[in-house]
């Protein structure tokens, strides 16, 4: 089949000159290779774009949902652990304040003594002191120097009755501290009210306070655990632990407590009674 194209090519091969018509013809044929796009091409492209947009929006929603779920998985357990711990630590901080009252414990002694006090506490209404509105921060001097002796017992009794009925910072028999929102510092009167030892005078409770300071709460409590508490208990403690008069007076002075000569003589010079 002869064609114009074929004739051009033969001409080109025959001579070395490049006929412009051959090249032009090839270029024209080459240009004819351009084809139109399929009829629905634009529609297909736009449909694909809309599908892509929906996919992107869905992916964003999933990412947001996933982040929310991940946050919930992490935060909720953490809150369940952290919040109760925070609440507990706040409660413990409150309890610790009342345990460190120096009037009641020797330096360094805190809750150990309280545990023993509560174990020897009797649930005997007679021994419980009536509720007091206010407890003085430190036990006052047993007898002011210029006060007549007759007035001292009356004042002592009124002071003794001021001891609060409820434990202040002292745990119950199970070792748990009852909730007492009133921050009244423990005093010798408080201690006396919460033990089996019946305080007849303010002096006796002050003696116990001084002895506790000297001996240490833990040691004293351990010793008291084996004893029957009576009015001889202070003297028994003095002799058991070998406390000298000078040491006792020094400790009393540190606690702003004073004792009469008779009281001191009773404590240190009166022979021990049989238990």
């Amino acid at each position, binding site marked *: 089949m002869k064609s114009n194209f074929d004739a051009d090519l033969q001409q080109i091969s025959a001579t070395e000159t490049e006929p412009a018509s051959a090249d032009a013809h090839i270029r024209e044929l*080459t240009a004819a290779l351009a084809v139109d796009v399929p009829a629905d091409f634009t529609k297909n492209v736009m449909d694909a774009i809309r599908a892509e947009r929906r996919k992107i929006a869905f992916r964003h929603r999933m990412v947001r949902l996933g982040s929310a779920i991940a946050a919930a998985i992490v935060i909720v357990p953490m809150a369940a652990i952290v919040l109760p711990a925070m609440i507990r630590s706040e409660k413990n901080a409150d309890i610790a304040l009342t345990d460190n009252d120096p009037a009641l414990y020797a330096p360094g002694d805190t809750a150990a003594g309280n545990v023993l006090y509560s174990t020897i506490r009797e649930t005997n209404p007679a021994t419980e002191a009536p509720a007091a509105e206010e407890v003085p921060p430190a036990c006052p001097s047993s007898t002011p120097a210029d006060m007549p002796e007759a007035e001292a017992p009356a004042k002592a009794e009124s002071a003794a009755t001021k001891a609060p009925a409820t434990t202040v910072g002292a745990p119950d028999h199970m070792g748990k501290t009852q909730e007492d929102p009133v921050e009244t510092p423990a005093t010798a009167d408080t201690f006396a009210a919460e033990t089996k030892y019946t305080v007849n005078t303010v002096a006796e409770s002050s003696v116990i306070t001084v002895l506790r300071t000297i001996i240490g709460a833990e040691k004293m409590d351990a010793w008291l655990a084996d004893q029957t508490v009576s009015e001889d208990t202070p003297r028994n403690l003095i002799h058991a632990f070998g406390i000298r008069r000078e040491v006792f007076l020094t400790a009393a002075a540190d606690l702003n407590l004073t004792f009469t000569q008779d009281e001191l003589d009773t404590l240190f010079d009166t022979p021990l009674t049989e238990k």
Partner: protein
Amino acid sequence: MIIQSPERKAVSVEDLSLARQAAEGSDDAFAVIVERYSRLVYNVALRSVSSPEDAADISQETFLKAWRSIASFRGDCALSTWLCRIALNCCCDHARAAKRHRAVSLTVQEDEEESKVLDIPDTDVTAMPEEELTRQTEIAAVREAIDSLPEEMKTIITLRDISGLSYAEIADILRLEMGTVKSRINRARAAVKNFLIERNFFT
């Protein structure tokens, strides 16, 4: 009004405006872009692959990629240049993927494959005028000649002689010097001519 970019083909204000509207989410603006440049992109893709279906897929992928990154088009080149670059990249990706997953058709028979190469229109040839039949045969021969060229020459002759882009546009697309573009086009044309002569395709 044309915005002149130094040493590059200028981007038209209209194209820039369309691109910005499309970046803001206007589907209509992007549809106009597709209508305007789909033939260019499709013919670039068609020269790279063997079937019109693959060419349509590559073209669609080109416009999808363009849509995703339309906000990054700053107008420092013509929109046609930008789209052609994306199309050529998609063709490369397709070629790489085709190499990895060589697919064998289960339905196409061998004789159908041969007739596809010449890509003679599926019409009753007996009813066709002789001149038209000759022309179709010539076109098929040229197509075969171009398909036999190395990729580099195939691309450049497609952009120049099939898609009708200027030397400046081609230089911009392929990031070549103008002289290099002209030289490569001459060599590509000579290669096509030699192919036709050697094959003696036309008897």
